[in-house]
């Protein structure tokens, strides 16, 4: 998957979980500060992303995923 494909698929998950319009979910956006994704919603996003992209995102890693770009990069590095 390309970076843009991963971003778009992640944006769909964020839209489903938190109701944020998918077009707002861009690489430079912070989940907490820009998209209003709270910590429990973030766990939901992570679990959905694990299933969608076939990756494992440990709880310790989640706190490092501050922006959409952080998450997309993590998925790119770890997707099988």
């Amino acid at each position: 998957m390309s970076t843009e494909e991963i971003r778009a698929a992640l944006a769909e998950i964020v839209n489903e979980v938190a109701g944020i319009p998918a077009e707002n979910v861009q690489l430079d956006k912070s989940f907490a500060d820009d998209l209003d994704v709270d910590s429990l919603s973030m766990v939901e996003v992570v679990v959905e992303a694990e299933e969608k992209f076939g990756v494992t995102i440990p709880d310790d890693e989640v706190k490092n995923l501050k922006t959409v770009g952080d998450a997309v990069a993590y998925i790119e590095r770890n997707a099988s």
Partner: protein
Amino acid sequence: MSRIRVVVTGLGTTNPLGGDVASTWDGLLAGRSGIRQLGEITEGLPVTIGGPAAVDPTEVLERVVARRLDRSSQLALVAALEAWADSGLAAVKEAGDLDGERLGVAFASGIGGVHTLLSNHEVLLEKGPRRVSPIAVPMLMANAPAATISLKLGARGPVNTPVSACASGNEAIALAADQIRLGRVDVAVAGGTEAAIHPLPIAAFANMMALSKNPGDPTTVSRPFDTGRDGFVLGEGAGALVLESLEHAQARGARIYAEVLGAGITADAHDIAQPDPEGRGGARAIRAAVRDADVAAADIAHVNAHATSTPQGDVAESLMLHAVLGSAADDLVVSATKSMTGHLLGGAGALEGVATVLALHHRTAPPTINLDDKDERVELDVATSPRQLPSGDIAALNNSFGFGGANVAVVFGSAG
């Protein structure tokens, strides 16, 4: 010091008859049944009928709001928001004239978020613990409906969840009225909700012989006081009442539907599930409510009976009314609205509280359907068509009884 008087200034509901108060009242007066076949979810179950909410709450609430709430909280929120809008208090609060600390919530559930609990259990078994929702706990906890309403309305006073099985909704009304009487809040949103139409609760209630297994036309199965009754029909939904101190309501020129005159809460200490066959605990609750309300037996013109359509309970309720009210029990008009709505468990007392208040407001007792052959042990004037209630100051009683031996009676008075 004179007692703080409590009045009803807003009503809301969503239930098997309708998604709001107007459609519900129309349905009740028309004697319409909200009971139907439930379809594939009941495959293999001994009972296949129930009263699902007429309007799916996910069609009313925003998707992102609904997905974070158990169905019981969705129904509660829909009913509470209607009652809140009806009261006119939204504008008062926005203008800063109602402090959140003076606003409380008492909203009941009999079982809690059973859909969330069971669907997450399925996920746990099928996909493993990692897939269990991180918001399962705040969705399924018993106080989720009350907390959801508190969050939405900014209620920062006492936010309570009375749990007394099928008496829960009525207990919430009693508790909310007490919070106002004690001066803790000026306004409280009271009510109850339940969403238990799911194979597990249906199987469990059926196995304890509580549900009707009548295979006939679903609309005829809930038949309180009739000789053909053989158990209740499970319904889902919520009822909500905005209660307010009379002083607060008058100061803002609010429309007053009725007054909460008094309440009585007792326990049978007889059996965890069977009612006392002579209805002694229920009679004590009704007596306590009438005394608290300081009304004469003859002032009570109407009763919304608990009357779930079970063989024992319906007869016991007749005994209770006679034990407390004496010959006055012959003159009051009784309605068993579960004949149309089914039994909403923790939502029942609240929906029936709404119906009782509407009966006083419109001076009309709704009918009881399916009463073709009244059990001769039921010595009550049960309305089978809409019946006009007397003019002047009258009172009405809302009875609710629940597993665990819980008994709650609330007396409402007509508005001046």
